């Protein structure tokens, strides 16, 4: 596995910060500030710049995890961090007002990264709603973007194991895409990105 840079995106309160804390092997760099908007997500703090964590693969290789603030008013941070990312792990909380629409909105927002590497969706806080059918999300995505392949899984953002499964799904997608790009690259004699 090569070095990877993964962006954690999705609305405020979806669990991006929790997920990076669960996954990271280093102390996470956080930028939490007192939350003045308790109506959107009733939690004491919110991310205002980024979260940063790492998972080591070996001495030289690691997966870098960048979380963005969920609120659109911080979308300049989305742009800055999306530049270096290869894929998006999109978290959407099932207890939000319009979770299906929200998921599609964020997929569209980060679609350039779908094309670069991939997007997976983690549906969080599903235990807090009576029903959160994954099929609803998959069907809505298929209706909206028929040619797009985006895996949707239910996850608890606090669970290292569940988040790792979702992350590995994304990394497999990215490596597949890079391998295809490499083989095409070799065919036309241009140096594509190497995925080991």
């Amino acid at each position, binding site marked *: 596995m090569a070095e990877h840079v993964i962006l954690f995106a999705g609305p405020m309160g979806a669990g991006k910060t929790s997920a990076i804390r669960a996954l990271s092997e280093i102390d996470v760099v956080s930028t939490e500030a007192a*939350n003045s*908007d308790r109506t959107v997500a009733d939690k004491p703090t919110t991310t205002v710049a980024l979260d940063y964590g790492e998972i080591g693969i070996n001495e030289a290789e690691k997966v870098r995890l960048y979380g963005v603030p969920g609120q659109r008013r911080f979308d300049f941070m989305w742009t800055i961090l999306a530049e270096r990312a290869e894929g998006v792990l999109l978290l959407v909380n099932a207890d939000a007002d319009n979770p299906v629409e929200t998921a599609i909105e964020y997929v569209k927002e980060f679609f350039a990264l779908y094309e670069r590497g991939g997007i997976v969706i983690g549906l969080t806080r599903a235990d807090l709603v009576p029903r959160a059918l994954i099929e609803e999300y998959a069907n809505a995505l298929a209706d909206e973007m028929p040619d797009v392949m985006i895996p949707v899984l239910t996850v608890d953002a606090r669970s290292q194991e569940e988040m790792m499964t979702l992350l590995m799904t994304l990394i497999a997608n990215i490596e597949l895409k890079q391998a295809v790009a490499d083989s095409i690259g070799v065919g036309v004699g241009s140096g594509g990105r190497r995925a080991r």
Partner: protein
Amino acid sequence: MTLAPHLDSKYIVRGELALGGLRDLAPSLRYASLLTEDGFSVVSVAGNEFDSNRFASMASSTQALADAVARELQLGDNEFVIVAAEEGHVVQVRVQGHPLVLAALFTDRETIGGSLTAARRTARRLTTLLMAK
């Protein structure tokens, strides 16, 4: 539940007073914003060429990143942030005792030291203003 500062008239009125004082103190002030640490604009003065919400969001991120660097390097509390560019500089200070940041943009007619002094004095004055009932 207590009202968030950007919706609380006490913060808005006293913030206006403090920022007005900063404008009098520093003629080279181009724009100033009092914001919640999570990036909501409470009040702003001078230049209307800026989007106050965007300015507040960016100031909030900048503040948090600078604080994170100080924390990471174990330097103690971060006291202020300065972004010095060719045609002006931004000075940011926290308002002691409140989840608020003062961010002020000055033209290059003022020295950074002069701007910093003015911004710090304004933040301290706001703390005092907010102490009164």
